[in-house]
């Protein structure tokens, strides 16, 4: 079967009228005006430079050459080519292109997986101890500021600091007692902030932030001691520093990988998912450290059990916004571990006067009501 088409040689823009003849295994091209123009293109090396469209116009090219073009405009001929070489619709510039591509994609996915894995697991424990204390402190202060601002947004007010450290004698005595028992290197700062959220968190550079809500939630000082010892446990294991490094590493890597297509949000979400997978081990380590600290300080350890149990049973009734940042999910396995080791032996966490004083750090309930009429 033969039709007329046009041939471009890839070296010039000159258009040559040609006769196309489809023979078994090859496509013969003969110049109509130019008898020297004579080619035979093997059918199985053809690919569509322009796939046949509704107007039946199509453009053919040849693998290996890739520059020359054949324009044709005949539905019958196109069908005949497809019949002679059914795979033509999937063929591209180079032979085996798809297999090569699959290899490239496979290798790059593997290296990305390795990079993400390294950023999440290998680098943080390796880098965290190498960071100088002064740098850690700056990192931690920035993190604390950010979290407090965020809580402020949620609670729709500027979060005030009730007291930091030595300015409050009762809290200072309590802090010293826990710090000595923990044998923590470097400073330990406790900041109480006036927020109703029931939570506490540790930040790099030996910083613990306690929310007013947690002090109100605690039934007895041993419960507060339990949570604070747990946070000191996080600090001993450098969890906040590792977490921050992991966060920087993961978001950096993922943002770079996934950015560009406007999918920055995917990077953040993936980062969050990967991060949360590491918190379970950290919680266990912090629990163990908390029990040790409390025992060394001579404080009853059953407070830590009751407070975390109450977190999981009483918190669900709270508004959702207050649970959002609860980073201490009490799994069954954590609860059993804690209860097995905790005892009622040991002393009080502090005197009754000190407890009263700490409970009123952010002002008594009446004082607060006066300041902020609801």
């Amino acid at each position, binding site marked *: 079967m033969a039709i007329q088409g046009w041939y*471009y*040689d*890839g*070296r*010039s*823009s*000159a*258009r040559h009228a040609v006769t196309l003849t489809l023979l078994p295994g090859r496509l013969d091209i003969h110049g109509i005006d130019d008898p020297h123009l004579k080619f035979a293109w093997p059918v199985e090396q053809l690919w569509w*430079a*322009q796939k046949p469209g509704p*107007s039946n116009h199509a*453009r053919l090219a040849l693998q290996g050459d890739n*520059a*020359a*073009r054949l324009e044709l405009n005949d539905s019958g001929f196109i069908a005949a080519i497809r019949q002679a070489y059914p795979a033509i619709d999937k063929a*591209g*510039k180079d032979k085996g*292109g798809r297999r*090569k*591509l699959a290899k*490239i*994609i496979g290798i*790059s996915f593997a290296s990305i997986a390795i*990079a993400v894995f390294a950023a999440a697991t290998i680098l943080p424990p390796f880098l965290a101890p190498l960071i100088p204390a*002064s*740098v850690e402190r*700056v990192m931690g202060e920035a993190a604390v500021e950010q979290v407090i601002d965020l809580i402020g*947004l*949620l609670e*729709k007010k500027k979060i005030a600091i009730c007291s930091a450290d030595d300015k409050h004698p009762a809290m200072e005595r309590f802090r010293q007692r826990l710090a000595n028992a923990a044998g923590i290197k470097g400073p330990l700062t406790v900041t109480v902030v006036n927020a109703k959220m029931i939570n506490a968190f540790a930040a790099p550079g030996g910083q613990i932030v306690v929310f007013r809500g947690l002090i109100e939630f605690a039934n007895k000082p041993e419960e507060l001691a339990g949570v604070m010892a747990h946070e000191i446990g996080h600090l001993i294991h450098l969890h906040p520093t590792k977490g921050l490094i992991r966060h*920087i590493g993961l978001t*950096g*890597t993922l943002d*770079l*990988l*996934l*950015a*560009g*297509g*406007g*999918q920055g949000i*995917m990077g953040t979400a*993936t980062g969050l998912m990967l991060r949360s997978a590491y918190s379970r081990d950290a919680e266990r380590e912090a629990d163990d450290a908390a029990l040790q600290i409390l025992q060394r300080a001579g404080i009853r350890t059953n407070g830590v059990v009751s407070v975390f149990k109450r977190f999981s049973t009483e918190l669900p009734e709270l*508004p*959702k*916004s207050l649970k*959002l940042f609860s980073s201490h999910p009490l799994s069954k396995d954590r609860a059993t571990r804690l209860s097995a080791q905790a005892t009622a032996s040991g002393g009080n966490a502090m005197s009754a006067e000190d407890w009263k004083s700490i409970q009123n750090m952010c002002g008594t309930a009446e004082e607060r009501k006066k300041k902020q009429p609801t």
Partner: protein
Amino acid sequence: MADEPISEAVSPSDSPAPPVQHPLNYTGEAKTLGWLVFKNTLLTIITLGFYRFWGKTHIRRYIWSSQSLFGEPLEYTGTGKELFLGFLIVLAVLIPIGIIINVGNFYIQTMGNNIALISFQVVYYLILFYLFGYAVYRARRYQLSRTVWRSIRFAQAGDAKKYALKFIGYWLLAVATIGLAAPLAMVRLQTYLTNNTFLGQENFNLDARAKDIFWQTILCAILAPFTLYLSVLWFAAFYARYTISKTSFGPVQLTLPVTFRDLAAIYIPYVLVLVIIFAGITGPIFFAGYNLENIAKIGASSFASITGLILFVFFMPVIAVMMITHRLLGLYATKLEAEGEIDLEAFVQNTQQASGTGEGLVDALDVGGAGGIEVGL
């Protein structure tokens, strides 16, 4: 496919004035383009961003093949694989640079030395600007080298490093002169781009002068705040008209008589549509106030709003390609004129090899524009 009369249709003896032609023709359909962009966005999200290289390639292939130059369609020969490889290469270079910059920035911040911090950031932004200029040039080079017409490639000669240096130099000058040198920056950079653009061995030539656009630039900048930035559209039309009218290709002189009204007819409906959709979606959220508890209470309506917001972000590229890219391509095709005889058969391929991978930097820096589609010479 309105075949414009080509040179042989005009009898040369009767008309001493060279024929005026519309060299560009565009037959793309808005709904096909919209569908391609929709598919691209969807698959890109599903594949955590990896489909975008192939999606972009499909979109370009469609746009290129919908355009014809002197009656012959253009062909886009780039592949997703090339874009992907370019991306991987850039990643290998950018990750270490990124780590060095981040760590350096961090240490300098903890030092508390303001002069050190400021100089570090100045250097950082200079590097970023340099990379931006470099990326723009490389992307253009890639796209031109993958544009084929009558089996001949377009090409961008010149040097990306040189362009990047010019880019920083001219724009720093523009900043130092509170914008007075901005026309110079635009004209000089555009001249470097255009004069290095080739079809085969024939290059385009731009003969523009900064003084010709000086007052218009100043006027546009001054009037922008008082005209809801419509003066920017007015300037864009003027600038396109001016630069194209100063562009020649061998014996062919180009003109593009676009007006403010042409551009306004494209951009204003687009902005209005975006504003209406966006207000409809975010209205309830604003009404509820940015409070998680409130949002939980009014549940359904805010859920609808948030879903709407996600859909909005999802469909924005579709709306953009249908209302902007498609219509601009149509506008350029109808308006572009070429005067002068051109021998369509006489172009010879430049033997200079085109690079094997492309555009990674543009992708990593997110310089692409609407779906990575750039229009213009």
